[in-house]
């Protein structure tokens, strides 16, 4: 499989975050969501991928190259929307477009104009006068107008209303439909990830505690909710997390078949949501 992004055993102490042994791979034509609470290392990871900071250990390959060495060539193939979507907010939408266009040899002005129309962005309005949602849209238009192969978005849905979030996520799905482009986005909102991501990476305190295809997780994993007797399941190989609940325990299994024997009349077996997995997996009470 053609992998646009390979992150291998990355270590990085940066600010208050310390990434430790972070690894994942993003194939071409897919969406990967990186989820984690504030301070978990999402933005640090994105800075590493863009070559803004260097890893203390491990390696990152974007299009097969090290972003710390071949940053310029790599970044010409990346579209980005940073946590602050627009800089130079005193400029109008049209001027910002011209400013960014100068940096890309394959800038497609007609595509940029089409995106402005599609996103209903007023060309003469200053970026500072745009809402948060409109700024994200503008950031996306700037990121998409140069035929980027990898789109990197740092918490693009934060602060957006549900309608616009859904619209934005739909747009991300459309972007990868051609099979040429991949999307990597970070989020604190797991339903975003559940809605569009093909691959999920869960970060907590700088460590990956899940990385893999999202559908595998949702189809194969199971959660058993039951009474105190479920504590006996804690030692099972397939158990990935266990947490006390009002009834007794919630137990997360990475194999539906392995979970079935623990499901009797007093407990129920469910497919987990990403919220369930995130809460149970790697939590303090997990095994």
């Amino acid at each position, binding site marked *: 499989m053609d992998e646009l992004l390979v992150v291998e055993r990355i270590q990085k102490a*940066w600010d208050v975050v310390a990434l430790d042994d972070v690894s994942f791979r993003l194939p071409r034509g897919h969406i990967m969501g990186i989820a984690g609470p504030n301070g978990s290392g999402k933005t640090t990871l994105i*800075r590493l991928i*863009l*070559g*803004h*900071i*260097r890893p203390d250990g491990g390696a990152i390959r974007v299009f097969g190259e090290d972003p710390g060495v071949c*940053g*310029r*060539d790599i*970044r*010409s193939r*990346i579209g*980005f929307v*940073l946590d*602050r979507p627009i*800089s*130079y*907010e*005193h*400029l109008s939408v049209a*001027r910002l477009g*011209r*400013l*960014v266009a*100068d*940096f*890309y040899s394959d800038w497609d002005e007609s595509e940029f104009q089409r995106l402005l129309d599609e996103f209903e962005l007023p060309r003469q309005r200053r970026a500072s006068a745009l809402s948060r949602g409109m700024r994200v849209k503008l950031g996306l238009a700037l990121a998409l107008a140069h035929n980027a192969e990898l789109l990197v978005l740092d918490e693009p849905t934060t602060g957006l209303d549900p309608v616009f979030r859904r619209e934005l996520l739909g747009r991300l799905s459309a972007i990868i439909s051609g099979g040429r482009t991949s999307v990597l986005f970070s989020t604190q909102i797991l339903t975003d990830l559940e809605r569009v991501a093909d691959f999920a990476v869960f970060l907590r305190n700088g460590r990956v505690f899940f990385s893999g295809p999202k559908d595998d997780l949702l189809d194969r994993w199971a959660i058993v909710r039951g009474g105190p007797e479920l504590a006996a399941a804690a030692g099972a190989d397939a158990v990935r997390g266990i947490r006390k609940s009002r009834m007794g325990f919630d137990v997360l299994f990475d194999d539906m078949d392995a979970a079935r024997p623990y499901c009797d009349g007093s407990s129920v077996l469910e497919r987990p949501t990403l919220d369930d997995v995130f809460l149970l997996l790697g939590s303090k009470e997990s095994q």
Partner: protein
Amino acid sequence: MKALIRKDLRLLAPYWWLILPGHVLFSANGVISPEFLFWIGVALAASFTVGLATIDWRFDADRFVAALPVDRVTQVRARYVGAISAGILGTVLYVIYGSLVVAVFPARLGWADGAGAWNSAEGIAVFFLVTAALILVLLPFLYWLGLVRGIWGFGFVALAAMAVTISLVSSGGGAPSRALVDALAALVDNQGAAVAWTSVLASLMVLTWLSARLSIAGFCRREL
């Protein structure tokens, strides 16, 4: 590099109209004395030049620029080209508004004639060299330390330079700008124009190269 310079021009575009009237307005104070005209001019040119040099930091856009397809060495070089160009523009403006002040108050700016005059080649060169020196010292601080700490570091150096200047003036060394112009005029007299101006230009180029190397080394090490 072209894209970076054009970016700065686009960012400044909404403020261009302020520059000439702003200079003329402030330089009217230069009527007090030629020294005043000189140092107000340096302050205006330096603020314009420093404003341009720090534009990405002030818009909190350094990570945005770093995410564009441009390497850090090119970023630093473009910043120097822009800053030196701004210094040249500041010098041109100094000549323009100095001429305006002289035209309006012909009796006030009798800062000698000929070689030592404010608008002689030496006077204009000293003005540009002082402005350039400010930027050549400031930029390495910014690229090594970032905007806030860099400005503080530069501030300490500038204060030290001011203290030295004041002590020179108070010990009878004369006004610093006049002393610099006189020194350059003496160099031209003693060495001949070709040698003197070549030396000045070569020194400026070497200092610019050293300052840029220092900035590149700092910026390539920095994590954004």
